[in-house]
């Protein structure tokens, strides 16, 4: 497969977003989905191709480390595919005023482009650019519901996001200052000499905090619950499901390539644990389903951070499994929650009005807490067995945290299931319950989460088959030397010879 | 086989006869303590015959009858598991522990029969009687444990043989005095006489379980009482007093075992249910556990 197709996955959505207003009205609604379908197809093809060997595209023909590099290993390809599919499933189909819809579709396309860019970028500068692009579009999307609450929440998000970007920029600057390059492969090559010192670590930490804003890392994730609760469900789903994973992916790449240091892992581990604890416990008392999902997603990302903190392919495999699982489950849950906003008590009897919705919710909840044979279990199993294999007690502690928070997670998720399947509110409470169509599910949301559920069940059935590709992806991604060798063949051979 | 069938038939009869005279002795002791003459020799028999011969008998239903059948039948069965001189019955097929549980069947039967009477006094009485059973059976099993551990067997035949092998010096009462004392205390509580007869409490709950029992129902209970006295004393004698070398000694021991608590009983008022629990769980329990500790160390 020709590596130049890689550029398309970024360029196509971006182009479509800008050209959207120019397209005739009749076709306008089709452009976005079509483009995303093409990207998805490309992603699929790329994944097939990259499973054996990663693809590298030097944009404009400039050789790395000078030029822009797009690097697509199987993980990146899979995420491209995921970006396209998830965006497609969460596509703003309508139900809004025309110009507003145009804006949303454009923004969504830009977001898709930025996300795809984040996955394939081979240097920190591009990462930063795409990250900013994603940030800005997500601000726009988050405020899209145009309620006062949403705007306040988004404002908070903007402030945090900007500060985070600033910190990330400082970190990148520091790295550039120390090593003189931003190309990841080059950095990986130079890191042992230039970056494995307190200053380098500080740079990593700043980048971690900066990207962490999107990845819902503990300390910088306080924007998440409010934004998710007030934004439209599909926006929340996009942010929680997709954007956060890509930020995470970048952090993971940095960790594998540039900072494979115990200190860095430790920071990730500790923040991941805190994220898990804070998210899951906060969700325990949530009285609103969207906030609950937001906190739950903070917790899940904490688990992913913990997973990536495990050295070697085991950690990457666990992290990928958790991230992918969450990528499937959380958007679906947000979609289901679209009409279920407000107090949890109002869900009483929801199962009778929307049996499919409630059943899907229960299914996703089961998978989220890791009930075998659903895929969530395998993710958790990989995470825990990875943690248990580490000699350091901190990893065992992390394992304990995962176990305990899973219990908490089960309790609050099933409390919701219980409310939905319980008796309908009577008497005074009846006013609180949305009757009639108000909290039945719209067909599109049901269809969307139905597709996610189908994916989930397919994954459950095919779990033994998925194990091998996941392992290969993890090996590919965790092999820093191969990355360097693929992007900078000459250097790798040099250092290989030096050893 | 014929031999054992004869034993099975004779053992309950013997038990009943001895038990009847125990009832007489009990009433005589009470009379003597109260400076009365007391009943004539065959008074227990008169009572039973009269009750069975009542012309009208009121029953509260099938279960009322079945309860009495179980109460008497259960004890008849239990007697065959208690070795007496010359007869072992099926004692080797059912040890001490089994015996203890088989003797709960009559209580259960009685409880069922009383329950069917639909008399609240009876139900209160049964509730108290079961509580009393809970009270005395706990130290009782401690004692059973101690004895079985000491003799290394649950089998009463062997327990008795072990004691008779060495005369009084090898009796349970000399080997395990603490357990023997605890056992006597427990036996006392088990017999359900003052101060442990809160479940009868005639003036309060109108004799409790017996409130609706008349005619042959009451007669059945009288029969059961005979068996109960015999069983309790025979178990004690087998565990601690060397069982029966011959009938004379056996009967003497049996009567002595019943006479001791009965000589104390009639000077007491009665304990409330919770106090029965307190006293029975305190003294025989402490003695019994200490005895078990001694036996095991």
């Amino acid at each position, binding site marked *: 497969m020709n590596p130049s197709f890689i550029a398309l996955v970024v360029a196509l959505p971006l182009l479509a977003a800008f050209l959207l207003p120019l397209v005739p009205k009749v076709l306008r609604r089709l452009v976005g989905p079509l483009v995303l379908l093409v990207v998805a197809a490309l992603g699929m093809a790329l994944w097939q191709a990259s499973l054996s060997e990663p693809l590298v595209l030097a944009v404009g023909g400039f050789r790395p480390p000078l030029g822009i590099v797009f690097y697509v290993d199987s993980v990146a390809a899979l995420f491209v595919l995921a970006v396209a599919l998830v965006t497609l499933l969460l596509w703003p189909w309508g139900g809004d005023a025309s110009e507003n819809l145009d804006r949303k579709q454009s923004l969504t396309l830009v977001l898709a482009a930025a996300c795809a860019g984040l996955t394939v970028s081979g240097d920190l500068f591009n990462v930063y650019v795409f990250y900013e692009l994603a940030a800005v579009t997500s601000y726009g999307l988050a405020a899209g519901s145009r309620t006062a609450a949403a705007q306040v929440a988004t404002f908070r998000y903007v402030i945090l996001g900007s500060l985070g970007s600033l910190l990330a920029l400082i970190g990148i600057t520091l790295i550039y200052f120390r090593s003189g390059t931003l190309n990841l492969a080059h950095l990986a090559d130079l890191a042992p000499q230039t970056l494995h010192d307190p*200053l380098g670590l500080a740079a990593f930490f700043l980048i971690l905090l900066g990207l962490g804003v999107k990845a819902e890392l503990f300390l910088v994730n306080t924007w998440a619950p409010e934004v998710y609760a007030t934004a439209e469900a599909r926006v929340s789903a996009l942010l929680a499901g997709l954007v956060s994973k890509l930020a995470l992916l970048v952090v993971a790449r940095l960790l594998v390539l540039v900072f494979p240091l115990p200190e860095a892992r430790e920071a990730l581990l500790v923040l991941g644990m805190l994220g898990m604890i804070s998210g899951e416990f906060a969700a*325990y008392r949530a009285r609103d389903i969207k906030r609950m999902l937001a906190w739950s997603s903070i917790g899940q990302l904490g688990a992913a951070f913990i997973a990536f903190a495990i050295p070697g392919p085991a950690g990457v495999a666990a992290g990928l499994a958790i991230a992918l699982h969450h990528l499937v489950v959380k958007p679906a849950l947000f979609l289901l929650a679209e009409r279920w906003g407000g107090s949890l008590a109002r869900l009483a009897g929801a199962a009778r009005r929307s049996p499919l919705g409630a059943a899907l919710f229960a299914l996703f909840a089961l998978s989220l807490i890791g009930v*075998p044979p659903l895929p969530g279990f395998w993710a958790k199993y990989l995470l825990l067995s990875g943690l248990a294999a580490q000699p350091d007690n901190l990893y065992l502690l992390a394992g304990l945290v995962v176990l305990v928070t899973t219990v908490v997670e089960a309790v609050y998720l099933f409390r919701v299931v219980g409310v939905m399947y319980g008796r309908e509110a009577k008497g005074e409470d009846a006013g609180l319950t949305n009757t009639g169509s108000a909290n039945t599910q719209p067909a599109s949301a049901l269809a969307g989460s139905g597709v996610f559920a189908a994916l989930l069940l397919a994954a459950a059935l095919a779990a033994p088959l998925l194990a091998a590709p996941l392992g290969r992806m993890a090996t590919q991604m965790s092999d820093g030397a191969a990355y360097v060798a693929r992007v900078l063949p000459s250097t790798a051979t040099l250092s290989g010879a030096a050893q | 086989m014929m031999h054992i069938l004869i034993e099975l038939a004779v053992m309950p009869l013997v038990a009943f006869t001895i038990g009847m005279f125990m009832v007489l002795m009990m009433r005589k002791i009470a009379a003597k303590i109260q400076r009365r003459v007391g009943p004539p020799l065959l008074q227990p028999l008169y009572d039973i015959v009269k009750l069975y011969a009542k012309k009208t008998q009121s029953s509260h239903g099938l279960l009322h009858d079945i309860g009495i059948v179980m109460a008497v039948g259960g004890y008849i*069965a239990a007697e065959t598991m208690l070795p007496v001189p010359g007869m072992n019955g099926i004692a080797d097929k059912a040890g001490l522990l089994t015996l203890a549980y088989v003797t709960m069947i009559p209580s259960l039967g009685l409880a069922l029969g009383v329950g069917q009477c639909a008399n609240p006094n009876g139900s209160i009485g049964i509730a108290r009687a079961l509580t009393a059973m809970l009270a005395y059976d706990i130290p009782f099993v401690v004692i059973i444990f101690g004895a079985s551990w000491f003799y290394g*067997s649950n089998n009463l035949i062997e327990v008795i043989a072990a004691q008779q092998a060495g005369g009084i010096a090898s009796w349970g009462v000399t080997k395990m005095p603490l357990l023997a004392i605890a056992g006597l205390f427990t036996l006392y509580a088990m017999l359900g006489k003052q101060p442990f007869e809160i479940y009868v409490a005639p003036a309060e709950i109108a004799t409790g379980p017996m409130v609706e029992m008349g005619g042959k129902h009451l007669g059945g209970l009288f029969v059961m009482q005979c068996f109960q006295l015999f069983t309790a004393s025979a178990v004690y004698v087998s565990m601690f007093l060397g069982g029966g070398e011959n009938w004379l000694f056996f009967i003497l021991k049996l009567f002595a075992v019943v006479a001791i608590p009965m000589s104390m009983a009639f000077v007491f008022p009665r304990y409330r249910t919770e106090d029965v629990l307190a006293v029975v769980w305190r003294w025989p329990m402490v003695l019994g556990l200490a005895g078990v500790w001694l036996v095991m160390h």
Partner: protein
Amino acid sequence: MNALDLLLSLSALMLLAAFLFGQTRVYPWLAGILFTGQLVLLAGSDLPMAAGVGLEIFGQQVGWQLDGFGRYFALITIGAALASNVYMGGEWGERYQADGHSLRWLHAALAGNVLAMLLLLSSKDLIAFFIGWELTSWAGFLLMAQGGERALRAALRYVPYAMGGAMAVLGGLVLTLSWTGTLDLLELSRVMSTLGNGQLALLLALFAIGFSIKMGLLPFHLWQAPAYAEAAGPGTAFLGAISARMGLFALGILLVKLMTLSRVADLAFIDGLFTARDLLAWVAALTIVLPTFTALKQNDARYLLAWHGIGQGGYMLLGIVMGDATGSAGGLLHVFNYATYQAALVLAVFAVMHRTGTADLNSLGGLVTRMPLTFLVMLLGIIGLAGLPPMNGFVSKWLVYRSLMVEGRPLLFLMTVIGTLGTILSVYKLIHNTFLGQLRAEHEHIREAPWSMTVPMLALVILAFVTGVAPGLALSWVAEAQAALGLPVLAYTLGGIESPRGSLDMLWIVGVLFAGFGIGALLFYGAGGRSKRVHQLDNYAGGHFLSADVRYHYSDHFYAGLMHRIGPLYRGSFTWLESAVASATDLAASLMQAWYRQAVPALTLLVAAVLGLGWMVWR
């Protein structure tokens, strides 16, 4: 396709069928046939039954194989399911549907439970085991949650316990993998006992806590009674009969097969005086006593039985922990025995509920004349539950007592007997308040439960009686299970055991007992005058005239004197633990929410950045 594959596919087929047409009249018949088929298949196959299919996933082999130990539990599972299925196939199910519940889901939940348990029981490695374990938990949840709001609430209370247990097991699983490098049970049985004491103790703690929760051992038992009691009738019977025993199955595998009891006894808290094995034995003993006496306080028949279910589990574990041939046979036999009479008892209680609409022990009474068959079932059932001859419950408890006597454990022995005595008290209250005493005016026209309900109940108690008279029938399975687990095998006879230190021959005992009853009956009916039935109002009340509108059935606060003495000793026992954990969780949750509600996130970010930098630089 070999026998186990066939068994599992039959089970899965039934689950599918239940989903598709569980609400129809045909399904119970089909399910009955399929369950019977499974029973026959299970009983007739050679051991061990290995599944033809296996998976490899993430480097682990996942496979299924059923040995004697698993088959013993599987037989009980399917038997209990069969009885429950027949029970809910008739009038009960129609009423259930008429009340607005979904019979389809109930059938599906039952079929799902059976499938999950079969998967668990036949697991060949820890992954398959954990899959089965979780499926069992959640299928159990599904069964518990049906039948109304209270059932749902009780089931939700089960969730944190179930997940806590599952997570403990999962933690143990990954540590096992990390320390031994294998998850295969056979392999582990060779390797695990060679681990160091510290590692073994941690594994024991994790696994044992996980398994105890399912089994309802102290102090993790609080969820069980409401969850089992409030479920829909036959569901309660099935859950009560076998569901919690999955915990025992797992503990048996862990303690005997994987770790071996002698290794467990090496883990000493106080050298030579108190080991992990003693701790387990004492937990089992306390599990017998406390829940039994909690049952004594219940005023709802279902709760009473459910609490006894927890208590009876203690005998089983105690027997297994004793580890000798007699004790472990007693513990294992008790699983079967308990299942037979507990299922029967629960079904009887629900038959009463079916007719009267209540299981409240203070609003029933005198039903023996109206529901005599149900009464008979309950009578035989409580004799079994109380562990008195001639029912099978006596045999298994006797074996456990016997083992404790021979092993010289007086205090544990005392505990078991206290439990038995408490059971006698409490079951008498059950039958007295339900069937004896005054028949209420509103119950005068009650009829016996329909055949669809009485037949399974009667079949169960007859089974309990027959295996009580001839325990050798069930002991053959037990011996097989013992052998499969690596325990010493009990030498048994048809009537019990033969031993110089005191044998047990139930054939003789029951024979003599019934001969005694016969003579008693002869004396009673033959020797006395004619009797006449009198009305319940013709009753002594100190000369007072009773009338039907006066309620004089003594039911409330039944053991007043006893409770006065012992009630304060265990009032709210261990609920403090549960509420403490719940409060701590709530507190933590509030704190975490406060963190997310903070006013100045930007400042936090800056402070965090500075602190983090400081940490990175100066660590």
